[in-house]
């Protein structure tokens, strides 16, 4: 059920595009209005959410320290895993965001039941697949920019030519697309087949993965098999980008399905766990230096509390203290 529902959900999205475009001929709606609405939802949703997080206070300096602190000059400290100033924090964050450093150190534990022995080994699959997925996703999205701007900036040509290095006929085969499909499929399969991961997964963990797989599949279909004419696509996308959208040609159903899937992903993003993309930057256990003994961290809502003062304590125990030879304030 946890998997079936999101699967049906994605099929549903495809069906809606099919009905809307093929049967009802709502090309203007699916080609222009929905993409705009989705994009606005995405931008506004993300910004509002980040602002909401930003309004929450950071009362304490609570980095998770994963290495040696800065103490004496003769003790080798770990600048990246236990940053002591903002520069080192930037280093830690950069490695976290670009290379998934925490996942890199992942381990997996298993129990030899007959001997009652626990074994911990290094485990890099999630790291590898996660990294491949996110990087190729990013490159693919970046590559798509050439559809929106005219003339195409040279950096896009560069990415394009690197990506298409393995030229296997026409059109050029982008290896990022294939890796994206492969890694997304792996991440999905792991969610379904690794018992622990299946157990913790929610329908809304499967949904975005399936949605992305569907997007990639429709994209690949469009590019390599159904061969939608890129010139006509550009008419629409450049128009969208320059706020003068027009639908000039019949672009074919697959294009609308692809576009609608992307729109759904965009609109879904700010209301889901996909916000981790922004949240990781604000995570206090990662983005703070471990310097709280050197620099006082201020809690904006710190308030005075009721304490049991020394005077009250001495009143409670004065005689006992005197008998034990402990100095007192009041005789």
């Amino acid at each position, binding site marked *: 059920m946890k998997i079936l529902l999101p699967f049906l959900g994605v099929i549903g999205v495809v069906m809606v595009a099919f009905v809307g475009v093929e049967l009802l001929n709502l090309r203007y709606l699916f080609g222009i209005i929905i993409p705009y609405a989705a994009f606005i939802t995405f931008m506004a949703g993300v910004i509002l*959410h980040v602002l909401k*997080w*930003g309004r*929450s206070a950071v009362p*304490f*300096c*609570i980095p*998770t*320290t*994963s290495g*040696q*602190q800065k*103490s004496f000059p003769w*003790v*080798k400290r*770990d600048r990246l*895993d236990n940053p002591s100033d903002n520069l080192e924090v930037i280093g830690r964050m950069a490695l*976290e965001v670009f290379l998934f450093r*925490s*996942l890199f150190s*992942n*381990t997996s*534990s298993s*129990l030899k*039941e007959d001997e*009652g022995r626990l074994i*911990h080994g290094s485990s890099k699959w*999630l790291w590898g697949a996660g990294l491949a997925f996110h990087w190729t996703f990013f490159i693919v999205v970046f590559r798509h920019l050439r559809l929106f701007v005219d003339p195409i900036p040279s950096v896009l040509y560069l990415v394009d030519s690197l990506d298409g290095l393995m030229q296997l006929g026409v059109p050029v085969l982008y290896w990022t697309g294939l890796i994206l499909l492969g890694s997304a499929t792996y991440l999905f399969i792991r969610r379904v087949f*690794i*018992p*622990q991961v299946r157990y*913790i997964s*929610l329908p*809304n963990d499967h949904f975005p993965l399936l949605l992305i797989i569907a997007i990639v599949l429709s994209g690949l279909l469009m590019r390599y098999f159904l061969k939608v004419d890129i010139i006509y696509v550009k008419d629409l996308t450049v128009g969208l980008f320059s706020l003068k959208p027009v639908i000039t040609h019949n672009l074919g159903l697959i294009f609308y399905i692809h576009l609608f899937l992307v729109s759904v992903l965009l609109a879904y993003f700010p*209301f*889901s*766990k996909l*916000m*981790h993309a922004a*949240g*990781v930057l*604000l*995570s*206090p*256990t990662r983005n703070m230096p*471990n310097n*709280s003994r*050197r620099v*006082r*961290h201020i809690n904006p809502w710190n308030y005075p509390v*009721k304490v049991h003062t*020394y005077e009250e304590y*001495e009143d409670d*125990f004065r005689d*006992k*203290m005197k*008998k*034990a030879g*402990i*100095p007192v304030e009041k005789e």
Partner: protein
Amino acid sequence: MSNSKSEELSSDIKYTLPEEDWMDVPVRMKKGMYCHGANENSLITVGFPNPRQWSSSETNWKLPENWQDIVLTGMAERLEKYRSFHIFMDICVRCGACADKCHFFLGTGDPKNMPVLRAELLRSIYRREFTTAGKLFGKFAGARELNEEVLREWWYYFFQCTECRRCSVFCPYGIDTAEITMIARELLNLLGLNIEWIAGPVANCYMKGNHLGLEPHTITSSVEFLTDEIEELTGIKIEPTFNRKGAEILFVTPSGDLFADPGTYTCMGYLMLFHELGLDYTWSTYASEGGNFGSFTSNEMGKRLNSKIYAEAKRLGVKWILGGECGHMWRVLNQYMDTWNGPADFLEVPVSPITGTVFENASSTKMVHISEFTADLLKHDRLEIAPSRNDHYKVTYHDSCNTSRGMGLLEEPRYIIKKVCNNFFEMPEHTIREKTFCCGSGSGLNASENMEMRLRGGFPRANAVKYVKNKYDVDMLACICAIDRAALTTIMDYWVPGVRVIGVTELLANAMKMKGENNRQTDLRGDPLLGAEGGDAEEESEDV
């Protein structure tokens, strides 16, 4: 080496998962896996909400009429007060990286002990009440209603997390389930759903200055008892001072070390070290607790208890503060104290009176860790050390959770150990330093009625100790934590009999030659030294 006792618990650990979805598995509170509820009086002493007579094993917890409102208002308030909480509620992707990192999961196989599910227990309510998706799509979006069943589940599992932060090390976003547990315990506290093992010590500490509730004259006599022991052992009479104004340094350590073996040996170590150095320091009976069980129940209570340390330092007019060996005490001192009760502008930047080293890293809190202090002494060769006096031990070292993952004090204790003993062996790499396994009894869970939970939680740590015991004949587990000293002793007796627990300062004191000491034949705990006195033992060949 197998032992039949430990097979009892280990044989039923299975990482197989139920058929049903976790939300459909009702909480089954198993005896031995949870603590007694807080006594009425403990709550009244500190003014905590809903004091009443109740029992955690009964069904009627005597909740206030509007308990749901209290919880939800409390959550809303904390979402604004803690960005950590707010973000951790939103961004978990359930990647599973943290799933097998928790010692309670590894020791019980209970899926709700996977950090991610522990957090989902609370997150599911957050979604239902505070997110659009949760309100609209309910269970499909991982949301559920807050009812008494959920509340029991919270109580059971948030008092089955030792706030050790191991999960946080591996999470790609740094999601710290310890932080979520801290918030959850605050919410439970709003309903009077505390455990007595925390609430009792909190009340004690508030009124009497320490968790054990030792009154001033008991503190002095406990210390006197230890100085008598030292005199017997070394022939040296030590006369420490209490509440002395004008001392240079205030020394604060967990009260547990005054009271029970093997912590008392560590405490003797402090007394011997300070005497040998001629340190101008004082103990305090008012601030006689380094630990902070308040922090296991609410941020505010943590602050109320912690305030005594600075208040006393100010009253006595000391220059800086030295802190003893303890785990959570140092998480609090490193990450909370200055923010709560600072600025400590009435103190001076700590300088070692022996070596002249300025402790720059503590220039604002003005509080130095004993291992930092000692490592600096040894670096400057200010102590006469005979490491051979620890030759009768084969030592490994357990990093406490809080000093590793909430501070990063990894090298200093190792430096000391390597200086003061010849036989030191590390446990496997995935079980030490920032990846260290908890003793299973931290964050106020070291009671006795929850013994099965503690033993299970201690299983991964014990397993790694067993590995070095089998491989190198290790028989001593060193640590810098008072709770470890008590808790790991129990854990070792069960899982790895033959391994005892020792404080790093005890190891140091074993090896430290004191001026004017007599011919020492035994170590601090009365174990005979290898060979005769002095460096002779170094000649003995090791039998491996």
